[in-house]
């Protein structure tokens, strides 16, 4: 279970939000909403442990995330604004290295399979710089298939994707939730996942 308690965030001199509470159990989806600049990305980075909250604490299975950093990060996958895709490496190499660096042993077939699942089967060996923006984001999203994370933290996963990929990513999230996973995401698009009613966390309120 993931819990945020009485969180406050200050960036520069602006207080973005305060007294923010949420809980997230297995199988639940939490949608973070709010206008531009309301602190959605900051909240997600805070939940990841990249940003220290000005006030309050974040608990993973009842423990502060800083205290259980290794197991927390082993059970979490973050998809940020920057897709963490190296332009000079091919799609295959990108996924392969990022999994291995995260400590997940993967073999060639698994990597190919994951990329194929996201519709990149035909450009496995092209350097990422020749891929489109949407394709790069798919490379980054394909990590989610291989890292066995219980918690997905996705910052705008649906931008720059075509209709087919939109459907695909939403169904991936759906499957993840049905397996008992948790997801925290921000998006400006409507999210339609059959059988799931997302919890809403509105930062503008």
């Amino acid at each position, binding site marked *: 279970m993931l819990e945020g308690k009485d969180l406050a965030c200050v960036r*520069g*001199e602006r207080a973005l939000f305060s007294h923010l509470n949420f809980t997230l159990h297995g199988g639940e989806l939490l949608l973070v909403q709010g206008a531009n600049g309301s602190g959605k990305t900051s909240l997600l980075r805070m939940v990841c442990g990249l940003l220290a909250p000005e006030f309050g604490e974040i608990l993973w299975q009842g423990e502060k995330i800083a205290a259980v950093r290794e197991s927390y990060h082993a059970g979490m996958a973050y998809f940020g604004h920057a897709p963490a895709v190296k332009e000079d490496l091919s799609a295959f190499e990108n996924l392969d290295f990022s999994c291995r660096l995260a400590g997940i042993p993967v073999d060639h077939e698994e990597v190919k399979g994951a990329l194929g699942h996201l519709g990149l089967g035909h450009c496995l060996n092209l350097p990422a710089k020749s891929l489109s923006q949407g394709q790069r984001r798919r490379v980054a999203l394909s990590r989610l298939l291989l890292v066995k994370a219980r918690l997905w933290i996705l910052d705008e996963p649906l931008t720059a994707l075509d209709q087919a990929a939109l459907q695909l990513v939403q169904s991936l999230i759906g499957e993840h939730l049905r397996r008992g996973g948790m997801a925290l995401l921000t998006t400006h698009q409507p999210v339609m996942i059959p059988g799931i009613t997302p919890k809403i966390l509105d930062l503008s309120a």
Partner: protein
Amino acid sequence: MTSRFNLYKYSSPATFYALAGKMIPWFYGAAALLGAVGLYISFFLAPTDFQQSEAYRIIFIHVPASWMSMFIYVVMAGWAAFGLAFNTRLSFMMASALAPTGAMLTFVSLWTGALWGKPTWGAWWVWDARLTSELILFFLYLGFMALQAAIDDPRRADRAGALIALVGVVNVPIIYFSVRWWNTLHQGASVSMTKAPSMATIMLEGMMVMALAVWMYAIAASLSRVRSIILERERNTQWVAQLLETEV
């Protein structure tokens, strides 16, 4: 719980702002008084040196400035470490407030060193171990201030500055040792200011009084700088708004 509350009370910028305001005039006063006495001793009571004649009197300013410039760097790093360890904003502000005073004193030390060097060594600048170390210390101060100036986010500026101050203070002994080593190898017996003929008691007294004066000045100057930093950082808070209302 109570002890934590106390700590917060004393390290609260609002409390400290008022406290510093009361202390500053005293420190400036002490600095002026001690400075006057010290300069009188240095320029009128201390005898003329038989080797260096009157020119040696510059060490009454040079030596205290050098001492203080080094000491301030260590104090600055101390505040930085305290800030990183306990996350107290005031300690970071103290560190930033000390840097310009430290850099200024380093500069005074270099400048007076050059003034002293010309009649004594016949050159404005000599790559003496102490002067060279002082020059490097000046660079360290500049680096600290440049880094803080380049960062817009105050939280990051505080922490990044604190870290570089700590890295600097760990390196200072290594740098000092290496420069001395380099100097002795390249110059044989080097001319050094401490090797000046043994000082008369009155000279030592003059120097001590001057050192105290510089000390008082440094405290006063950094306290008044920390007050402006507090005002700038806290300008959106209620207590600053109230303060401005009462003062206008």
